């Protein structure tokens, strides 16, 4: 492991949470009295579904405008009824992890580093590449049969995306004429 216990606590913000619990002790009245001080008391939970396995457990996300404060199993959800596994419990860190990538990055041919770029620049370039590859490889017909396809571009993945996203991916890719369309169900 590349992080020490201390770093880990710092990374996860667990220190603050632990201290808060210690402060409260186990006195029920005290907990009630202090609960208004909990950050989440002011926040409205947003229901989501766990992004990990396919059981489809409900999770509530308590967030401010720029931070995810707390997440918990959705007690109203008929499948998990509030409980979660280790992965489902940790989804706050999908937001807070310092490893999150926050900028589009470009790597030029032969280069040994990433360069930060703007979205517009990236998408313009990608569209150019798609068009070049499609136009150079496009087949209208094969042996007299209309095929309207390109076999030079592949689309891979999508099993962690929303249905609406998978729909637009298949639409754009088939619209362009791709035949190599695959996702994680295969692997």
């Amino acid at each position: 492991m590349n992080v020490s216990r201390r770093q880990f606590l710092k990374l996860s913000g667990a220190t603050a949470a632990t201290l808060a619990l210690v402060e409260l002790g186990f006195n029920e009245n005290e907990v009630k009295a202090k609960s208004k001080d909990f950050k989440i008391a002011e926040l409205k939970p947003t229901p989501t579904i766990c992004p990990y396995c396919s059981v489809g457990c409900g999770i509530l996300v308590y967030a401010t405008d720029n931070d995810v404060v707390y997440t918990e199993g959705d007690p109203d959800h008929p499948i998990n009824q509030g409980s979660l596994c280790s992965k489902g419990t940790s989804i706050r860190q999908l937001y807070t992890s310092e490893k999150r990538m926050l900028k589009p990055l470009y790597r030029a041919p032969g280069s040994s580093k990433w360069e930060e770029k703007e979205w517009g620049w990236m998408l313009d370039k990608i569209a150019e590449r798609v068009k070049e590859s499609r136009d150079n490889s496009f087949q209208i017909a094969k042996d007299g049969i209309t095929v309207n396809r390109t076999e030079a571009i592949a689309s891979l993945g999508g099993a962690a995306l929303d249905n609406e996203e998978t729909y637009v991916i298949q639409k754009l890719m088939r619209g362009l004429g791709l035949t190599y369309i695959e996702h994680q169900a295969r692997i």
Partner: protein
Amino acid sequence: MGGNPAENHPISFKYLLKAKQNGGKIVSVDPRFTRSSSQADVYAPLRSGTDIAFLGGMINYAIQNDMIHKDYVVSYTNASFIVEDTFSYEDGLFSGYDAEKRKYDQKQWKYKTDAEGKTVVDKTLQNPRCVYQLMKKHFERYTVEKVCEVTGTPQDKYIEVAKTFCATADPKKAGTIMYAMGTTQHTVGTQNVRSFAILQLLLGNIGVPGGGVQALRGESNVQGSTDFGLLFGNLTGYIEVPQAVAEQASLEKFLGVVTPKLGYWVNKPKFLVSFLKAMYGKSATKDNEFGFQFLPKIDPKDYSHIALFENMYAGNLDGAFLWGTNPVVGGPNALVEKQALGKLKWMVAVDLWETESSSFWQKEAGSNPEDIQTEVFFLPACSSYEKEGTVSNSGRWMQYRWQAIKPKGDSKADLEIVHMLARRLKEAYKGSTKPEDKPFQAMTWEFGEHDHPDIDLVAKEINGYDTVTGKLVAKFPDLKDDGTTSSGNWIYCGFYPEEGKNLSQRRDNKDTGMSNFLNWSFSWPVNRRILYNRASCDPSGKPYNEKNAIIWWDESAKAWGGYDVPDFNKLLAPSDEGGATAFMMTGTTKGNLFAPRNEGPFPEHYEPFESPVQNAFSSQQINPAIKIWDGDHNPRGNSEKFPIVATTYRMSEHWQSGAMTRNTPWLAELVPHMLIEISEELAKDKGIKDKDKVKISSARGEIEAYAVVTKRFKPYTILGKTVHQIGMIWHFGYKGIVTGASANNLTPHIGDANTNIPEYKAFLCDVRRA
């Protein structure tokens, strides 16, 4: 069997424990004594890759001991169908095999038909050419003794499993099978699942509450992304992708080939034309076959993951999009897949994290960046709760995820990324008069005029419209094949039946009976929760098990009633024609005990591509219909050099290639190291102690990991010989908070004969101290 829900689908296991409290029995069959096994009433080990032997023996046990649900089998399966005399089986091969092409002529496996073209049946099941008798004969060879010699299962344990599970042949009892990739990731993966289906049909366990064959999908939306056509061979809703062959060269011809004559799929033309209307809008007209020719046609060949990477490795592809996928860790023969990415001109990776795949060109990856000419575009995606949309779970519940916070930093939802790219491409092709650009120009893109798409418009296009009135279609029986309806995915049609009513957003958690929660979210098709639930009643419409009835025919109301949406026509009386049809999507309207697949109509045991033993069931060592990928980059290991069977699996704390969980501090800390599990006996042989660093080698590569010496693996005695098996997690790579070696550097490019899913779950290796 083939799954480990206690660890990989933990919340589902709550319900198994509840069932156990209510007197149910949990049976666990796994090469390793898992946490699921630890909660089981019966545990039986088997060597990886011997599932068909194990299940073939159970099918034989059920038949020989008359532990089958006879009325169900006669009424609802194809047991009574008579098969043509051209069908036969001998020594591992069915009739019609072409050894050179490694292919069967499946025309030799047809049913006998009468003068009117109807299938000949014998409801007494006595005719030696009926499916039941042929099946009985086929599996007679799978005796307990023979099976256990091959699987390595102790005989007493094996009999206990068979007895316990086959007891569910009692119409008052139900049994379910929960499986995952332990079943599918084999060169015989399809036939492993078929074996489950045969057993469950014989026991009368399909379509009944508490029954079924449950595919525990590994990702939150593997179900949805498959439903939505993200595999090369399927459009949305499991409609075939047309092939570039003369027999499918027009819409009419194509529909003639792919539309079955029986069952609900006779409506396929309505679903396909509605899909084409969703794709091409006004450009899809009756005069141009509703745009059928715009669709890309595939050759009758393999385009799946392994084939795709073999072609990429050969330099035949220019570019690739990676949507939150990480083949450099998760793909088979991963070192080769990493090299293949280096042969692309460009690659777009869309992810929350810098994965091993998006950084394959870096020094850390063992690459020399100067030598790699691939242009790489990394687009930061946001997480699931920083956007909104739906996912479909293993039970086909389409559930809404609301947006809790705006995307972090400059990250964006994939929906927005696809939309922004589509808008640019639309612009680039605008005004072109070239014929090859026509299909793309014809594709509609009506999800908003700005870079931020309107997800509601996407949702409604998926559901579908009446193209004349512009109203939403209420349910898929209303779809038409004349261009007056559209539907992006017919099986989801009805989740958005009218304006302002997206049923996936429903959150009424009152149990509507039998734990179906019909007012929570939406389940395709038409909110039905148990597929083929007609089979839970006898042909007269009376539930086989009154105590756990899910639907029934209500004679006074002249309609089907109950706790689920009946399958399929609510007003069709059991005495009406077709009123006792239970399996409307299988082509025969029956549960298919006999079902032609690329390697045969019945499952037959073959050894894995790499195996330490000879096949004891026939002289065919491996699945005769698998494609073998030759080449120095994909060598096959032999048992002299690599005598140990290996398999891969997951742990609770990590997920898939680890991209998500190795970047999450808590989870990274819980399981920070790459590890393998090995038996005490093998550890002793090899001088390995617990927590030692070890090297694991296969014909493809070598990796280093920590050894966990455990009682969870035990050596097998296979055909009188000791065979060791080890297991390893496949969550690690060189990026993230914690790093480690990738198990898939060891696995081969070899796949199932039908699906080409890689054989991750049984390959050969050797282990030594590092």
